């Protein structure tokens, strides 16, 4: 009997493709599956059905404005837990009920590794 769980599939809601690129590589190197990215709340809603997702990292400021909290709430309604990834720590702190916590930008691999464990 194996005790290992299948790797979590992580969605990243972020509008800067280079940050997505970096985080995607970090997520994969840490043994998770990168499930894809959405650059805006609108894109998340439009494409959610095309992703296979267990958990999400969510930026606060997206291509359609400060819609990260709304995106996290929307994901929460669908049973997907979120962690905020942002330079706007204060804004993130206003929505403690929407996320398991916050990862500060710029993102360090160590911080990401620690906090992805929260999804377990």
């Amino acid at each position: 009997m194996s005790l290992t769980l299948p790797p979590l599939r992580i969605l990243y809601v972020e509008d800067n493709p280079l940050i997505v690129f970096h985080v995607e590589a970090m997520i994969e190197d840490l043994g998770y599956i990168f499930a894809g990215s959405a650059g805006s709340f609108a894109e998340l809603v439009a494409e959610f059905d095309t992703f296979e997702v267990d958990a999400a990292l969510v930026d606060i400021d997206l291509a359609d404005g400060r819609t990260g909290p709304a995106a996290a709430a929307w994901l929460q309604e669908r049973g997907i837990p979120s962690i905020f990834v942002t330079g706007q720590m204060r804004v993130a702190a206003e929505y403690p009920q929407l996320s398991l916590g916050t990862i500060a930008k710029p993102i360090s691999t160590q911080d990401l590794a620690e906090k992805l464990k929260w999804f377990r």
Partner: protein
Amino acid sequence: MSGTDGSLDWVLILAPYRRDAEYLKTLLTQHDMVVKQAAGPEELAERLNEGPGILVVTHEALNPEVLDLIGGHLAAQPSWSEMPITVLLDRVAPQARIRAELGGRWPRSRQIFYQRPVATLELLSGVQSALLARLRQRDVRDHIEQEVELRRELNHRVKNILASVTAIFEMTRRGATSLDQLADDYAGRLQALSKVHSVVFEADGEAVDLTAIVERTCSPYRSDAGDRILAKGPPIRVKRDASMTLALCFHELATNALKYGALSRPEGRVRLDWELSSDADRILTLRWIESGGPPVTEPSNPGYGTRYIRSALRGLFGSPPQIIFDPGGLRCIAVGPSSRIC
């Protein structure tokens, strides 16, 4: 003229005696001005909140409560605002004392005094001139708001660029096997970013012609042997963020071709083409096809270029690109709705 939304182009009259108010209102209305009246302090407070262009007030209206109300409104004005106030004084009123008192109690206002009975022409031209001065203030307000907005946008973009540069550095560092390689690759990527930035800037920060992006990004590889990268496709204007992504992808593809692919041999060629489907979905297909280079084998460990192209084109097109390591030449094909790119 609307007279609402802080448009500052209407006249507020405070004249407690009906005859005065009616006379003023009729006169100003006849000369195409929008006029509102306030009968007492309560209505005055309400109307002041609506943002009058100027205030016309009669001497008798100025009881302590009204003086304070107006004083409070003036003190709360934003820095660009100096509300003109026209005061109609009685001939017997102690003019010097009143002017001194109002000057003290009403900071940051432009006060104009008339002695009754007022000559119609004088009053009209005074009120009109005050309204024009007020519209100038409104222009200043709009410029300030615009500047604040621009600064916010600039801050956002600078932060974004710094985050991009950091991500490029971190990812370049991972793949680097020597300091020289790190330095060269990083400099090349920053240069590609810088070039596309210039293209976007020249396009006023808006959509950019795809051909212009290709030309700027691929120019270092075209100068020596003419058109070794043949770009072809219908005119397409690409959104700002998409231009950045495409430019960096072309940069990765071109440098890879130069090091290991078609451009590493004199007879090698690259064909870069794109097309739009004619149906309602307007599907964009973008292809990078190499030929005439050394035989291609799939690398066991995908490097920065491959990983970047996969990640960036997947995000941009909404589905992952095909990257085919064909022995005859590398091919990279991305397909997706043009609405994501244009």
